[in-house]
């Protein structure tokens, strides 16, 4: 099923407040989903007989921020963080990209991680992918059973894939620069 068909099914089921538009002119079009609705939408996508998205290929975060003041005008995005879900159906052989757009910091307080509900109860692998997105991009997945750092050491400070991340000068006596 193509993206327009999936989009109309989702709109019919969840309404325009939960599901955004799918008309982005892109190579891989995506559907934007409201953070609060992601678990129901994902469960519907996984279990509905027309869709059957049983395979979560990838889940990652992406930080949109331009730190160079000269380039901000050309950047073209409001600062925000995206969570990108790549789904596919091994049975029906179609795929879909979902996106959640959240502010870079919760309530615009630096250091307060944005909150997105966890889908780890739906796909087993989401557990690790969400841990990685938490570790590297700094997104708090609510309802995750074990939200710990996965690639960086447990006492690491900051989230390295944030655009304004500053590399530490020293870590346990090891010089960073």
């Amino acid at each position, binding site marked *: 099923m193509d993206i327009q068909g999936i989009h109309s099914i989702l709109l019919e089921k969840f309404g325009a407040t939960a599901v955004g538009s799918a008309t982005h002119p*892109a*190579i*891989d079009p995506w559907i934007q989903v409201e953070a609060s609705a992601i678990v129901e939408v994902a469960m519907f996508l996984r279990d509905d007989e027309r869709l059957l998205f*049983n*395979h*979560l*290929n*990838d889940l*990652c975060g*992406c*930080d*949109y921020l331009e730190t160079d003041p000269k380039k901000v005008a*050309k*950047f*073209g995005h409001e600062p925000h963080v995206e969570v*990108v879900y*790549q789904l596919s159906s*091994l049975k029906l*052989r179609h795929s879909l*990209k979902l996106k959640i757009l959240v502010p870079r910091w919760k309530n615009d307080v630096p250091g307060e991680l944005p909150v997105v509900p966890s889908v780890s109860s739906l*796909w*087993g*692998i989401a*557990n*690790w992918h969400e841990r990685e997105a938490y570790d*590297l991009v700094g997104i708090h997945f609510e309802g995750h059973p074990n939200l710990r*750092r*996965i*690639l*960086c*050491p447990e006492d690491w400070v900051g989230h*390295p*894939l944030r655009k304004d991340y500053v590399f530490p000068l020293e870590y346990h006596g090891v010089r960073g620069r």
Partner: protein
Amino acid sequence: MSMQIEDPRVVEFDVQTDEMLVNMGPQHPSTHGVLRLLLRTDGEIVHECTPHIGYLHRSAEKIGENLSPPQYIPYTDRMDYLAGMNMNLGFSLAVEKLIGMKVPERGVHLRVLIAELGRIASHLVGMGTYGLDLGTFSPFLYAFREREIILDLFEEACGARLTYSYLTVGGATHDLPDEIEIPEGLASLTGRVQGERFPFTDVIEMFLQWLEPRIKEYHTLLTRNTIFIKRTAGQGVLTPEMAVSYGCTGPVLRGSGVNFDLRRDGEPIYTSMYKSYDFDVIAAPFKDAPREVVLGDNWCRFYVRMLEVVQAIRLVRQAIPKYKAATGSFREVFKLNSKLPKDEVYLETEAPRGQMGFYVVGNGEGNPLRVRAKSSCFCNVAITDQICQGVPLADIPAIVGSLDIVMGEIDR
């Protein structure tokens, strides 16, 4: 005289066991690199197996944000360092999809040839090291003898033996050489004169002819070996539902009976490469499996790899005449100062260990805004806790080895 036990409770107390935490790794020979498994054991039985990863984390995704795509190719080599060619191919295809570049026909067949040779080399290591995990040394030596010749051929093609950076955006860095000196190893194995010169494709054909009958020998040595079957059949059973839910891909998924291969079922930009090729997708169950084998066990995963080597040989054989017949250039030039469009792509390719995905976000500049490498082994190793419960401690290496993981790819 039979032994009398006066008070049975004494014996009961004596065999009572305590739970114990055992740290397996990160420096353990059978964890394939720096994987640390935290095992909660009761006596000899493992109740919980928690993998801890990240010891080889090199911030590959962050580095990608500060380099242009051709500059990033060498970093993809270092992800799955046993199949560098396939990693190069995955990232190149993702960037080509982003900028809408079309690779000339000669470049496509060159890529198929090289990628499938890489798959053979990678699966040979998988086979050899799995033998090591189970305590037999000789398959490892044979596998590395064969792999050595593939590495010699790659060295002739691009100059490197492990981190090739050969397949790049638009095609490859060089065309294949016309004529080479036959690699020393191949010369001595096939009884040819050292230093004799042959066309490159003839040397590949010579190698394949020599390799093909050897696969039967590996089956005798490992696959049909009673001890090997006892260690692998019925162990580490991964059901198809769990394999799909945990995002397992590649031989792990196909070993569980899900017939899915991106070379056949993937996106058009990838499947078009293999459109004119004739090959089978290998998936369990197997008709010729021993009685003890269960769908989705270690043996199935191993056997998928072995049969994929045969398919890869078929593909290379088909690629040689196609490559020779194709006219034109082997690459489309990617201008070093070109800008990436404001768009994003996600593309998965079938690397030897599973589906390797690259998510590239362009932002109108030379460097991408975000490079995400979705590793196949990352998903495959996440399953260990599920399939290692209730098995004896000695079977952990057999189960982890059957997943055929490479830590460089997991930690990136």
